[in-house]
């Protein structure tokens, strides 16, 4: 009964979405206030019905209702409760339900918190949100019904892949979706603006917080996913340029560009049609990600079960949503009013450079992801584009981006003084040169990449410090006065500094862990020792152990440095009976300075065990840096100007089509 309630609630949500997607939009073009006002209650109602559906599916999982096919396929009565709940979105149907739930949360957010939006814009934004919801609800109801019953019910479920029984994986999809779907807000605002033919500073001020929320969630989701693959997959890597990872990285790159270009629209009323395009593209990449993961077009380590019927549906949906919105852009963008002009060397100019680097990077990831498909379609050749391609493309782009990141905040709007910025960055040049020399000396005989990486880290970190010192006039005014300036600085300014420092920390982690990691792959007997990166790892013993739903072989590895015990590590190999699966559990010991990483495999039959040991200096900063970036985003969100009402729109000027930018 509960499952049927969930199913009906979804159908009702679809009906409400049809109302929300039609009447308010028509009302907005005819000036019918009553029809426009329908959008708000409809959006809240849709959230309520989808929440009922999601609750019903969760209930079926919690009580292990094996008359529901989805529960049978993805759950098991012996599973810990938290993974029963995580199992709701650990599969295709449930994850789509989570997707529309999040979509409706954002929609209700606009309905409830968007009181300061002009009525027409609000009605249109919610209308566009409803169109997206209609597509996804139809997709669920027609091809991926999570409430399908099965008769006769089997005695127990078919379990969940034990690789997926992990807190990191349980919670990284919701964050990714909060990010992906969050960019639907920027998309809806962009489409509404194209329909209205109006993009201005007020528009940018409404869009930016939504884009920033989505960006924070997406950054968190990607970082969690990367950390998960680092400590679960047991290969010691943290990013594989896998199509599914690329699918989440493309909207991140486009979304990051969007955040920056929206600033230009807000402050200077320029780059308008480009910002609208980015808003459309960012969400398009989110949709493309969904398509790539679920259609089986590209092979990947973590693709969902594939089904061509679903693929055709999603492709049709993509063509309507992305193709339709880009067509609307092609027709309407030329009519957007021309914005402010600016010199190439200016804050705007540096943000354009930022956007170019990010857009090219995004294009390169798209190309690298689709190239195997292209080659296959044209010539039948099968190839895979791996890390070598992405490394070659990414390193120069990121060097450009980070070099420019130091200058941008020091340049004035409209017309900046490049030489003055260079002079202000004196300290950064000195520190960078010193760090580069030191790295070169320490890493003699290695490739020049670590030197470049460490130089960039030093450059960006000092530049962030220089910019803060400039704003507060530190060292030039008495301390108390600088302190006062620091206290009065808007939180968004600190947010930017933090986020940029976070980028530097990520680069630090990537550079150091890549250049100076040590590893040992081989067989060890009990009592054997190996020296890796200055640490002595001794395999002290291996004993059987039992978990709630698995049996394990638990190794004990003593790690000493200079004769002193620094860690006792317990990597495991686990056997899960349902479904029969073997996994290895990585033992990880993290400090800010280095990670110790050990994996133990099967016995080789002669009393030895396959062992993989890594020491990775500073690798934790990859994720700590991402956390710092998110903290910057959150700080910026808490800025006062997002909490107070946005400025009133200027009455519309003569609406004759003006030349485009």
């Amino acid at each position, binding site marked *: 009964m509960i499952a049927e309630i969930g199913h009906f609630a979804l159908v009702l949500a679809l009906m409400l979405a049809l109302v929300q997607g039609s009447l308010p939009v028509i009302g907005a073009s005819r000036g019918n206030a009553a029809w426009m006002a329908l959008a708000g209650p409809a959006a809240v109602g849709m959230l309520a019905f989808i929440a009922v559906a999601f609750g019903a599916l969760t209930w079926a999982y919690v009580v292990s209702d094996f008359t529901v096919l989805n529960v049978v396929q993805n759950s098991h009565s012996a599973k810990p409760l938290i993974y029963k709940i995580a199992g709701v979105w650990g599969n295709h149907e449930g994850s789509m339900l989570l997707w529309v739930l999040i979509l409706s949360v954002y929609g209700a957010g606009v309905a409830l918190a968007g009181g300061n939006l002009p009525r027409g814009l609000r009605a249109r934004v919610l209308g566009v949100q409803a169109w997206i919801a209609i597509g996804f609800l139809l997709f669920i109801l027609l091809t991926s019904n999570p409430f399908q019953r099965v008769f006769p019910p089997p005695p127990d479920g078919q379990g969940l892949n034990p690789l997926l029984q992990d807190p990191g994986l349980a919670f990284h999809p919701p964050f990714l979706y909060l990010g992906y779907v969050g960019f639907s807000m920027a998309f809806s605002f962009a489409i509404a603006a194209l329909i209205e033919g109006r993009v201005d500073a007020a528009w940018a001020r409404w869009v930016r917080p939504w884009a920033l929320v989505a960006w924070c969630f997406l950054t968190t989701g990607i970082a969690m996913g990367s950390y998960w693959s680092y400590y679960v997959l047991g290969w010691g890597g943290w990013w594989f340029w896998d199509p599914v990872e690329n699918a989440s990285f493309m909207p991140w790159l486009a979304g990051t560009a969007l955040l920056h270009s929206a600033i230009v629209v807000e402050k200077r009323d320029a780059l308008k*049609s480009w910002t609208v*395009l980015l808003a*459309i*593209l960012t969400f*398009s990449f989110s949709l493309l990600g969904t*398509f790539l993961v679920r*259609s*089986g*077009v*590209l*092979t990947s380590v973590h693709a969902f079960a594939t089904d*061509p019927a679903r*693929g*055709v549906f999603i*492709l049709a949906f*993509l*063509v309507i949503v*992305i*193709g339709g919105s*880009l*067509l609307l*852009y*092609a*027709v309407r*963008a*030329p009519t957007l009013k021309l914005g402010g002009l600016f010199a190439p060397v200016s804050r705007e100019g540096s943000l354009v450079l930022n956007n170019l680097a990010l857009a090219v990077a995004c294009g390169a990831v*798209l190309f690298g992801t*689709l190239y*195997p*498909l*292209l080659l*296959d*379609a044209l010539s039948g050749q*099968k*190839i*895979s584009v*791996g890390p070598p391609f992405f490394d070659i493309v990414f390193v120069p782009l990121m060097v450009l981006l980070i070099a420019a990141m130091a200058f941008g905040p020091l340049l004035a709007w409209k017309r900046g003084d490049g030489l003055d910025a260079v002079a202000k960055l004196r300290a950064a040049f000195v520190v960078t040169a010193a760090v580069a020399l030191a790295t070169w000396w320490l890493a003699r005989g290695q490739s020049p990449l670590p030197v470049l990486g460490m130089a960039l880290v030093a450059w960006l970190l000092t530049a962030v410090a220089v910019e803060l010192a400039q704003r507060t006039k530190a060292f030039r005014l008495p301390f108390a006065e600088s302190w006062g300036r620091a206290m009065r600085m808007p939180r968004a300014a600190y947010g930017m500094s933090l986020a940029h420092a976070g980028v530097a920390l990520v680069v630090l982690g990537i550079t150091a862990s890549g250049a100076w990691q040590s590893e040992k792959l081989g067989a060890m007997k009990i009592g054997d020792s190996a020296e890796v990166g200055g640490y002595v790892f001794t395999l002290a013993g291996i004993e059987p152990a039992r978990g709630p739903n698995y049996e394990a072989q638990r190794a004990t590895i003593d790690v000493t440095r200079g004769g002193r015990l620094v860690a006792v590590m317990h990597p495991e190999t686990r056997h899960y009976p349902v479904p*029969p699966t*073997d996994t290895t559990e990585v033992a990880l010991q993290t400090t800010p300075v280095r990670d110790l990483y050990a994996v133990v*495999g*099967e016995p*080789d*039959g002669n009393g030895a065990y396959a062992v993989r040991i890594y020491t990775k200096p500073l690798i934790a900063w990859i994720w700590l840096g991402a956390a710092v970036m998110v903290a910057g985003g959150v700080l910026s969100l808490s800025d006062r100007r997002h909490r107070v009402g946005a400025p009133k729109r200027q009455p519309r000027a003569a609406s004759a089509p003006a030349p*485009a930018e």
Partner: protein
Amino acid sequence: MRVQYAVPVAIFALVALLLGAGLYLNPREIPSALIGRPVPSFQLPPLPGHDPGFSSADLKEGQVVLVNVFATWCVPCRAEHPILLELSKRHEVPIFAIDYKDDPKMAEAWLAEFGNPYSRIGMDKSGRVGIDWGVYGVPETYVIDRTGNIAFKQVGPLTADDMEQKILPLIRQLKARG
């Protein structure tokens, strides 16, 4: 409408066509990072009653070998089985097998029913060796050259055409290379 504003929609149209085509392509041959590299070192116990087992040392004895990864629970393996049997009767190349995540009793029954083309069988019950080989899915077939390097990999079942046009010519070429 100005031309430059239509560029995004034009690019998207191409991408959409490509994705549409992609739905109907079969990503079967996945290039392996291991091609041209030595086989991973491993040691697998035999299928009871079918001595000997299979280890990496067996691939470094100076002969060209076909390595087939199969499992009794895999339907396409059943489809390619007659082709392997046919090949084994020609005595051109020894066929070694990795039985992937399988039950020995089922494997026993399967070989008794359909015939045994393999001169060595290693039981990879946990699938751990499969991971080292980069196994995407069963069946997979590898050609190993005289020096123990992986020369070719196919994901998915072999067809008679694959055998005649790709695998046998390659094996002859590798053997001729001495």
